[in-house]
Protein backbone atom coordinates (compact mmCIF):
# COMPACT_ATOMS: atom_id res chain seq x y z
CA UNK A 1 0.00 0.00 0.00
CA UNK A 2 2.75 2.36 0.96
CA UNK A 3 4.54 1.56 -2.24
CA UNK A 4 1.44 2.43 -4.17
CA UNK A 5 1.27 5.83 -2.49
CA UNK A 6 4.93 6.32 -3.16
CA UNK A 7 4.40 5.42 -6.79
CA UNK A 8 1.48 7.85 -7.14
CA UNK A 9 3.44 10.59 -5.45
CA UNK A 10 6.46 10.05 -7.63
CA UNK A 11 4.55 10.03 -10.88
CA UNK A 12 1.73 12.40 -9.98
CA UNK A 13 2.50 14.86 -12.76
CA UNK A 14 2.71 12.13 -15.35
CA UNK A 15 -0.52 10.59 -14.07
CA UNK A 16 -2.30 13.94 -14.17
CA UNK A 17 -0.91 14.53 -17.65
CA UNK A 18 -2.12 11.14 -18.91
CA UNK A 19 -5.53 11.66 -17.34
CA UNK A 20 -6.03 15.08 -18.95
CA UNK A 21 -4.65 13.88 -22.27
CA UNK A 22 -7.16 11.02 -22.32
CA UNK A 23 -9.92 13.52 -21.57
CA UNK A 24 -8.78 15.71 -24.49
CA UNK A 25 -8.65 12.73 -26.85
CA UNK A 26 -12.09 11.68 -25.64
CA UNK A 27 -13.45 15.12 -26.61
CA UNK A 28 -11.71 14.84 -29.98
CA UNK A 29 -13.07 11.42 -30.82
CA UNK A 30 -16.50 12.34 -29.57
CA UNK A 31 -16.45 15.37 -31.83
CA UNK A 32 -15.73 13.20 -34.85
CA UNK A 33 -18.84 11.11 -34.33
CA UNK A 34 -21.86 12.82 -35.69
CA UNK A 35 -24.45 12.96 -32.98
CA UNK A 36 -22.77 12.89 -29.63
CA UNK A 37 -20.66 16.04 -29.25
CA UNK A 38 -22.41 18.18 -26.72
CA UNK A 39 -19.90 19.92 -24.48
CA UNK A 40 -17.19 21.49 -26.56
CA UNK A 41 -18.75 23.57 -29.31
CA UNK A 42 -19.17 27.23 -30.10
CA UNK A 43 -22.95 27.21 -29.68
CA UNK A 44 -22.88 28.31 -26.09
CA UNK A 45 -23.60 31.54 -24.28
CA UNK A 46 -20.01 32.82 -23.97
CA UNK A 47 -18.53 31.92 -27.35
CA UNK A 48 -21.70 32.70 -29.27
CA UNK A 49 -22.05 36.03 -27.50
CA UNK A 50 -18.48 37.07 -28.26
CA UNK A 51 -18.74 36.00 -31.87
CA UNK A 52 -21.96 37.91 -32.45
CA UNK A 53 -20.48 41.07 -30.88
CA UNK A 54 -17.42 40.95 -33.13
CA UNK A 55 -19.53 40.02 -36.11
CA UNK A 56 -21.69 43.11 -35.81
CA UNK A 57 -18.51 45.13 -36.44
CA UNK A 58 -17.38 43.01 -39.36
CA UNK A 59 -20.84 43.09 -40.85
CA UNK A 60 -20.49 46.77 -41.58
CA UNK A 61 -17.67 46.12 -44.01
CA UNK A 62 -19.56 43.37 -45.84
CA UNK A 63 -22.71 45.37 -46.55
CA UNK A 64 -21.75 45.95 -50.15
CA UNK A 65 -21.34 42.25 -50.99
CA UNK A 66 -24.46 41.38 -49.07
CA UNK A 67 -26.46 43.94 -51.08
CA UNK A 68 -25.13 42.57 -54.33
CA UNK A 69 -26.22 39.04 -53.42
CA UNK A 70 -29.69 40.27 -52.47
CA UNK A 71 -30.11 42.15 -55.73
CA UNK A 72 -29.03 39.10 -57.72
CA UNK A 73 -31.49 36.93 -55.88
CA UNK A 74 -34.28 39.48 -56.33
CA UNK A 75 -33.68 39.57 -60.06
CA UNK A 76 -33.73 35.80 -60.30
CA UNK A 77 -36.95 35.55 -58.35
CA UNK A 78 -38.57 38.30 -60.40
CA UNK A 79 -37.65 36.49 -63.59
CA UNK A 80 -39.24 33.32 -62.26
CA UNK A 81 -42.34 35.24 -61.27
CA UNK A 82 -42.75 36.78 -64.69
CA UNK A 83 -42.43 33.37 -66.31
CA UNK A 84 -45.10 31.99 -64.04
CA UNK A 85 -47.49 34.86 -64.79
CA UNK A 86 -47.36 34.21 -68.50
CA UNK A 87 -47.97 30.49 -68.02
CA UNK A 88 -50.71 30.71 -65.47
CA UNK A 89 -53.47 31.51 -67.90
CA UNK A 90 -53.42 28.15 -69.63
CA UNK A 91 -52.09 25.91 -66.86
CA UNK A 92 -53.61 24.95 -63.58
CA UNK A 93 -51.58 26.00 -60.58
CA UNK A 94 -51.64 25.26 -56.90
CA UNK A 95 -52.23 28.10 -54.53
CA UNK A 96 -49.69 27.70 -51.77
CA UNK A 97 -51.84 28.16 -48.75
CA UNK A 98 -50.46 29.53 -45.51
CA UNK A 99 -51.85 26.55 -43.67
CA UNK A 100 -49.20 23.97 -43.04
CA UNK A 101 -51.10 21.26 -44.80
CA UNK A 102 -49.61 22.01 -48.19
CA UNK A 103 -46.43 23.64 -47.08
CA UNK A 104 -43.47 21.29 -46.90
CA UNK A 105 -40.54 23.60 -46.26
CA UNK A 106 -40.28 26.54 -43.93
CA UNK A 107 -37.43 29.03 -44.32
CA UNK A 108 -35.89 31.11 -41.55
CA UNK A 109 -33.14 33.64 -42.00
CA UNK A 110 -30.02 33.58 -39.83
CA UNK A 111 -26.64 35.22 -39.78
CA UNK A 112 -23.30 33.44 -39.83
CA UNK A 113 -21.24 34.81 -36.94
CA UNK A 114 -18.25 32.51 -37.29
CA UNK A 115 -17.00 30.80 -40.42
CA UNK A 116 -14.11 28.38 -40.96
CA UNK A 117 -13.00 26.97 -44.28
CA UNK A 118 -9.27 26.24 -44.03
CA UNK A 119 -9.29 23.29 -41.65
CA UNK A 120 -10.03 19.66 -42.45
CA UNK A 121 -13.26 19.71 -40.46
CA UNK A 122 -15.01 23.03 -40.65
CA UNK A 123 -17.95 24.37 -38.70
CA UNK A 124 -19.97 27.58 -38.84
CA UNK A 125 -21.82 29.28 -36.04
CA UNK A 126 -25.15 31.01 -36.67
CA UNK A 127 -27.00 33.43 -34.43
CA UNK A 128 -30.23 31.47 -33.98
CA UNK A 129 -30.99 28.53 -31.75
CA UNK A 130 -33.76 26.50 -30.20
CA UNK A 131 -35.56 29.66 -29.01
CA UNK A 132 -36.00 30.65 -32.65
CA UNK A 133 -37.19 27.21 -33.69
CA UNK A 134 -33.90 25.83 -34.98
CA UNK A 135 -33.46 22.11 -34.54
CA UNK A 136 -30.74 19.59 -35.26
CA UNK A 137 -30.35 18.31 -38.82
CA UNK A 138 -31.86 21.29 -40.57
CA UNK A 139 -30.37 22.34 -43.89
CA UNK A 140 -28.57 25.66 -44.34
CA UNK A 141 -28.44 27.39 -47.73
CA UNK A 142 -27.93 30.86 -49.12
CA UNK A 143 -28.93 32.35 -52.43
CA UNK A 144 -25.94 30.82 -54.21
CA UNK A 145 -26.17 27.25 -52.93
CA UNK A 146 -25.92 24.84 -50.03
CA UNK A 147 -23.77 25.47 -46.97
CA UNK A 148 -24.29 22.73 -44.42
CA UNK A 149 -26.45 21.01 -41.82
CA UNK A 150 -27.17 22.13 -38.24
CA UNK A 151 -25.21 20.05 -35.75
CA UNK A 152 -25.44 21.44 -32.22
CA UNK A 153 -27.95 23.89 -30.82
CA UNK A 154 -28.13 26.03 -27.72
CA UNK A 155 -30.92 28.42 -26.83
CA UNK A 156 -29.70 31.29 -29.04
CA UNK A 157 -26.91 29.87 -31.22
CA UNK A 158 -26.25 26.83 -33.38
CA UNK A 159 -23.21 25.26 -34.97
CA UNK A 160 -23.42 24.09 -38.56
CA UNK A 161 -21.53 21.15 -40.02
CA UNK A 162 -20.15 22.78 -43.14
CA UNK A 163 -20.04 20.89 -46.45
CA UNK A 164 -16.29 21.42 -46.03
CA UNK A 165 -16.11 18.63 -43.45
CA UNK A 166 -15.01 15.02 -43.45
CA UNK A 167 -18.35 13.92 -41.99
CA UNK A 168 -20.51 15.82 -44.43
CA UNK A 169 -22.43 13.66 -46.91
CA UNK A 170 -24.97 15.48 -49.07
CA UNK A 171 -27.22 13.70 -51.52
CA UNK A 172 -26.99 15.37 -54.94
CA UNK A 173 -27.97 14.66 -58.53
CA UNK A 174 -27.16 15.77 -62.03
CA UNK A 175 -29.48 18.47 -63.26
CA UNK A 176 -30.01 16.92 -66.68
CA UNK A 177 -30.57 13.32 -65.58
CA UNK A 178 -31.84 11.44 -62.55
CA UNK A 179 -28.53 9.88 -61.47
CA UNK A 180 -27.82 10.40 -57.80
CA UNK A 181 -24.49 10.74 -56.00
CA UNK A 182 -22.98 11.91 -52.74
CA UNK A 183 -21.12 15.15 -52.23
CA UNK A 184 -17.99 14.85 -50.06
CA UNK A 185 -14.86 16.91 -49.49
CA UNK A 186 -11.24 15.71 -49.64
CA UNK A 187 -9.93 18.63 -47.61
CA UNK A 188 -7.69 20.18 -50.24
CA UNK A 189 -9.40 23.21 -51.78
CA UNK A 190 -12.42 24.96 -50.32
CA UNK A 191 -13.72 25.83 -53.79
CA UNK A 192 -13.72 22.23 -55.03
CA UNK A 193 -15.75 19.32 -53.71
CA UNK A 194 -15.99 15.69 -54.86
CA UNK A 195 -18.81 13.38 -55.89
CA UNK A 196 -18.81 9.68 -55.05
CA UNK A 197 -21.27 6.82 -55.55
CA UNK A 198 -22.39 7.97 -58.95
CA UNK A 199 -23.43 5.03 -61.19
CA UNK A 200 -21.26 4.38 -64.21
CA UNK A 201 -24.27 4.59 -66.50
CA UNK A 202 -24.53 8.30 -65.84
CA UNK A 203 -23.24 10.52 -68.61
CA UNK A 204 -21.14 13.34 -67.23
CA UNK A 205 -19.69 16.29 -69.07
CA UNK A 206 -17.50 19.09 -67.82
CA UNK A 207 -19.73 22.03 -67.00
CA UNK A 208 -22.81 19.99 -66.05
CA UNK A 209 -24.81 21.49 -63.21
CA UNK A 210 -25.21 19.67 -59.92
CA UNK A 211 -28.26 20.19 -57.71
CA UNK A 212 -29.43 18.67 -54.43
CA UNK A 213 -31.15 15.33 -54.83
CA UNK A 214 -34.00 15.67 -52.35
CA UNK A 215 -33.56 12.10 -51.12
CA UNK A 216 -32.31 13.07 -47.70
CA UNK A 217 -35.33 14.89 -46.19
CA UNK A 218 -32.97 17.72 -45.18
CA UNK A 219 -32.64 19.71 -48.39
CA UNK A 220 -35.46 20.17 -50.88
CA UNK A 221 -34.70 19.00 -54.38
CA UNK A 222 -33.15 21.39 -56.85
CA UNK A 223 -30.95 23.70 -54.80
CA UNK A 224 -27.86 24.73 -56.73
CA UNK A 225 -24.58 23.15 -55.72
CA UNK A 226 -22.03 23.71 -58.48
CA UNK A 227 -20.73 22.60 -61.86
CA UNK A 228 -18.49 19.70 -62.79
CA UNK A 229 -14.90 20.86 -63.10
CA UNK A 230 -13.12 17.71 -64.20
CA UNK A 231 -13.34 13.92 -63.77
CA UNK A 232 -11.53 10.68 -64.55
CA UNK A 233 -13.20 7.70 -66.17
CA UNK A 234 -11.10 4.62 -65.41
CA UNK A 235 -11.86 0.87 -65.45
CA UNK A 236 -15.39 1.57 -66.58
CA UNK A 237 -16.23 3.69 -63.57
CA UNK A 238 -15.95 7.28 -62.45
CA UNK A 239 -13.06 8.31 -60.27
CA UNK A 240 -12.48 11.73 -58.81
CA UNK A 241 -15.34 13.85 -60.00
CA UNK A 242 -14.50 17.41 -58.97
CA UNK A 243 -17.22 20.01 -58.56
CA UNK A 244 -16.56 23.71 -58.35
CA UNK A 245 -19.05 25.33 -56.01
CA UNK A 246 -21.31 28.22 -56.93
CA UNK A 247 -21.01 29.37 -53.36
CA UNK A 248 -17.97 31.20 -52.07
CA UNK A 249 -17.52 29.41 -48.74
CA UNK A 250 -14.95 31.97 -47.62
CA UNK A 251 -17.46 34.80 -47.37
CA UNK A 252 -20.89 33.92 -46.09
CA UNK A 253 -23.14 36.48 -44.47
CA UNK A 254 -26.83 35.78 -44.21
CA UNK A 255 -28.18 32.27 -44.68
CA UNK A 256 -31.53 30.52 -44.74
CA UNK A 257 -32.42 27.61 -42.51
CA UNK A 258 -34.71 25.04 -44.10
CA UNK A 259 -37.12 23.15 -41.93
CA UNK A 260 -38.82 20.18 -43.52
CA UNK A 261 -42.26 20.06 -41.95
CA UNK A 262 -42.96 16.59 -43.27
CA UNK A 263 -39.65 15.08 -42.27
CA UNK A 264 -41.04 13.13 -39.36
CA UNK A 265 -43.80 11.70 -41.48
CA UNK A 266 -41.32 10.67 -44.18
CA UNK A 267 -38.86 9.13 -41.71
CA UNK A 268 -41.56 7.14 -39.93
CA UNK A 269 -42.90 5.80 -43.17
CA UNK A 270 -39.44 4.83 -44.41
CA UNK A 271 -38.62 3.11 -41.15
CA UNK A 272 -41.87 1.24 -41.20
CA UNK A 273 -41.25 -0.01 -44.71
CA UNK A 274 -37.68 -1.07 -44.02
CA UNK A 275 -38.71 -2.97 -40.89
CA UNK A 276 -41.33 -5.01 -42.66
Amino acid at each position, binding site marked *: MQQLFYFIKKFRYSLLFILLEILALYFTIQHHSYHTSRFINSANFVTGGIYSKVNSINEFFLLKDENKLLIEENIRLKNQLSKQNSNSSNNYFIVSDTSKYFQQYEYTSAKVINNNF*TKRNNFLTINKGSNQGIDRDLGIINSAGIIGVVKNISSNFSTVLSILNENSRINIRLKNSNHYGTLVWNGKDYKTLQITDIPRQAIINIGDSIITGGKSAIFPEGINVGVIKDFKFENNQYNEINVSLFNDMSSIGYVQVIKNLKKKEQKELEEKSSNE
Partner: protein
Amino acid sequence: MNNLILSNSLRFIGLVLLQVLILNHINLFGYLNPMVYIVWIFLFPLKKNRSLFLILSFLFGLSVDMFSDSGGINAAATLFIAFIRISVLKTILRKSDFDYLLFNIRSLSIDKIFLYIATLTIIHHFIVFSLEYFSFNAFITILKNTIFTSIFTIILSILGIVLFTKKK
Protein backbone atom coordinates in the same frame (compact mmCIF):
# COMPACT_ATOMS: atom_id res chain seq x y z
CA MET B 1 3.03 37.52 -6.60
CA ASN B 2 -0.43 38.92 -7.26
CA ASN B 3 1.02 40.77 -10.14
CA LEU B 4 2.11 37.45 -11.62
CA ILE B 5 -1.37 35.92 -11.30
CA LEU B 6 -2.98 39.00 -12.80
CA SER B 7 -0.61 39.22 -15.75
CA ASN B 8 -0.95 35.51 -16.53
CA SER B 9 -4.76 35.63 -16.36
CA LEU B 10 -4.87 38.67 -18.60
CA ARG B 11 -2.52 36.94 -21.02
CA PHE B 12 -4.77 33.84 -20.91
CA ILE B 13 -7.90 35.76 -21.93
CA GLY B 14 -6.07 38.09 -24.29
CA LEU B 15 -4.34 35.31 -26.21
CA VAL B 16 -7.49 33.19 -26.55
CA LEU B 17 -9.41 36.15 -27.95
CA LEU B 18 -6.51 37.17 -30.22
CA GLN B 19 -6.32 33.61 -31.55
CA VAL B 20 -10.00 32.96 -32.20
CA LEU B 21 -11.05 36.42 -33.36
CA ILE B 22 -8.09 37.49 -35.48
CA LEU B 23 -5.45 34.83 -36.06
CA ASN B 24 -7.91 32.06 -37.01
CA HIS B 25 -9.11 34.22 -39.89
CA ILE B 26 -5.81 35.31 -41.42
CA ASN B 27 -5.71 32.56 -44.07
CA LEU B 28 -2.35 33.54 -45.56
CA PHE B 29 -1.93 31.91 -49.01
CA GLY B 30 -5.43 30.55 -48.54
CA TYR B 31 -4.84 28.21 -45.63
CA LEU B 32 -2.14 29.36 -43.16
CA ASN B 33 -3.39 30.37 -39.73
CA PRO B 34 -0.69 30.89 -37.10
CA MET B 35 -1.37 29.47 -33.64
CA VAL B 36 0.32 32.12 -31.58
CA TYR B 37 -1.79 31.40 -28.50
CA ILE B 38 0.82 28.88 -27.28
CA VAL B 39 3.05 31.83 -26.34
CA TRP B 40 1.19 31.57 -23.04
CA ILE B 41 2.90 28.22 -22.42
CA PHE B 42 6.34 29.65 -23.28
CA LEU B 43 5.97 32.54 -20.87
CA PHE B 44 4.38 30.79 -17.88
CA PRO B 45 6.76 30.99 -14.89
CA LEU B 46 8.62 27.77 -14.13
CA LYS B 47 8.55 27.93 -10.36
CA LYS B 48 4.77 27.66 -10.21
CA ASN B 49 2.99 24.51 -9.14
CA ARG B 50 3.34 21.99 -11.96
CA SER B 51 -0.06 20.32 -11.62
CA LEU B 52 -1.75 23.72 -11.66
CA PHE B 53 0.16 24.51 -14.83
CA LEU B 54 -0.97 21.25 -16.48
CA ILE B 55 -4.63 21.84 -15.57
CA LEU B 56 -4.47 25.48 -16.70
CA SER B 57 -2.90 24.61 -20.04
CA PHE B 58 -5.55 21.95 -20.59
CA LEU B 59 -8.27 24.53 -19.96
CA PHE B 60 -6.40 27.01 -22.13
CA GLY B 61 -6.38 24.64 -25.09
CA LEU B 62 -9.98 23.68 -24.41
CA SER B 63 -11.16 27.30 -24.56
CA VAL B 64 -9.54 27.68 -27.98
CA ASP B 65 -11.25 24.42 -29.00
CA MET B 66 -14.60 25.67 -27.84
CA PHE B 67 -14.37 28.71 -30.08
CA SER B 68 -13.07 26.89 -33.12
CA ASP B 69 -15.28 23.76 -32.85
CA SER B 70 -12.43 21.30 -32.96
CA GLY B 71 -13.26 18.85 -30.17
CA GLY B 72 -10.21 18.51 -27.94
CA ILE B 73 -7.44 18.87 -30.50
CA ASN B 74 -5.86 22.06 -29.17
CA ALA B 75 -6.28 20.91 -25.57
CA ALA B 76 -4.37 17.69 -26.26
CA ALA B 77 -1.52 19.46 -28.07
CA THR B 78 -1.22 22.33 -25.60
CA LEU B 79 -1.21 19.95 -22.65
CA PHE B 80 1.52 17.90 -24.29
CA ILE B 81 3.90 20.81 -24.82
CA ALA B 82 3.15 22.03 -21.30
CA PHE B 83 4.21 18.62 -20.01
CA ILE B 84 7.46 18.40 -21.97
CA ARG B 85 8.39 22.07 -21.54
CA ILE B 86 10.79 21.59 -18.64
CA SER B 87 12.58 18.65 -20.27
CA VAL B 88 13.01 20.65 -23.47
CA LEU B 89 14.39 23.61 -21.53
CA LYS B 90 16.77 21.37 -19.61
CA THR B 91 18.12 19.95 -22.85
CA ILE B 92 18.53 23.29 -24.56
CA LEU B 93 20.12 25.11 -21.62
CA ARG B 94 22.92 23.29 -19.93
CA LYS B 95 22.40 22.62 -16.26
CA SER B 96 24.56 25.55 -15.22
CA ASP B 97 22.46 28.07 -17.09
CA PHE B 98 19.25 26.76 -15.67
CA ASP B 99 17.89 29.03 -12.99
CA TYR B 100 14.71 27.44 -11.80
CA LEU B 101 13.43 30.30 -9.70
CA LEU B 102 14.30 33.34 -11.71
CA PHE B 103 13.57 31.98 -15.14
CA ASN B 104 12.88 34.73 -17.61
CA ILE B 105 12.77 34.06 -21.29
CA ARG B 106 14.37 37.39 -22.12
CA SER B 107 17.47 36.56 -20.11
CA LEU B 108 18.32 33.80 -22.63
CA SER B 109 20.30 34.44 -25.78
CA ILE B 110 18.27 34.77 -28.98
CA ASP B 111 19.39 31.45 -30.48
CA LYS B 112 18.26 29.59 -27.34
CA ILE B 113 14.91 31.39 -27.36
CA PHE B 114 14.52 30.39 -30.98
CA LEU B 115 15.38 26.74 -30.30
CA TYR B 116 13.01 26.58 -27.31
CA ILE B 117 10.08 28.13 -29.19
CA ALA B 118 10.71 26.26 -32.44
CA THR B 119 10.86 22.82 -30.77
CA LEU B 120 7.64 23.28 -28.82
CA THR B 121 5.83 24.94 -31.72
CA ILE B 122 6.65 22.19 -34.21
CA ILE B 123 5.61 19.46 -31.77
CA HIS B 124 2.37 21.29 -30.97
CA HIS B 125 1.48 21.89 -34.60
CA PHE B 126 2.27 18.32 -35.55
CA ILE B 127 -0.12 17.00 -32.90
CA VAL B 128 -2.83 19.48 -33.90
CA PHE B 129 -2.71 18.59 -37.59
CA SER B 130 -2.36 14.85 -36.97
CA LEU B 131 -5.47 14.84 -34.82
CA GLU B 132 -7.31 17.06 -37.27
CA TYR B 133 -6.67 14.89 -40.32
CA PHE B 134 -6.47 11.64 -38.35
CA SER B 135 -5.33 9.42 -41.23
CA PHE B 136 -2.04 8.06 -42.54
CA ASN B 137 -3.01 8.90 -46.10
CA ALA B 138 -2.83 12.58 -45.29
CA PHE B 139 0.70 12.36 -43.87
CA ILE B 140 2.18 14.63 -46.54
CA THR B 141 -0.54 17.22 -45.96
CA ILE B 142 0.03 17.04 -42.22
CA LEU B 143 3.78 17.60 -42.63
CA LYS B 144 3.27 20.42 -45.11
CA ASN B 145 0.78 22.18 -42.85
CA THR B 146 2.99 21.65 -39.81
CA ILE B 147 6.09 23.12 -41.44
CA PHE B 148 4.50 26.18 -43.04
CA THR B 149 2.25 27.06 -40.11
CA SER B 150 5.17 26.58 -37.70
CA ILE B 151 7.32 29.06 -39.61
CA PHE B 152 4.52 31.60 -39.45
CA THR B 153 3.85 30.95 -35.76
CA ILE B 154 7.52 31.07 -34.75
CA ILE B 155 8.09 34.42 -36.48
CA LEU B 156 5.00 35.96 -34.89
CA SER B 157 5.74 34.49 -31.44
CA ILE B 158 9.31 35.76 -31.33
CA LEU B 159 8.26 39.18 -32.57
CA GLY B 160 5.50 39.29 -29.97
CA ILE B 161 7.79 38.23 -27.14
CA VAL B 162 10.49 40.73 -28.13
CA LEU B 163 8.01 43.57 -28.48
CA PHE B 164 5.73 42.98 -25.53
CA THR B 165 7.87 41.64 -22.70
CA LYS B 166 10.32 43.59 -20.59
CA LYS B 167 13.98 42.73 -20.56
CA LYS B 168 15.38 42.17 -17.10
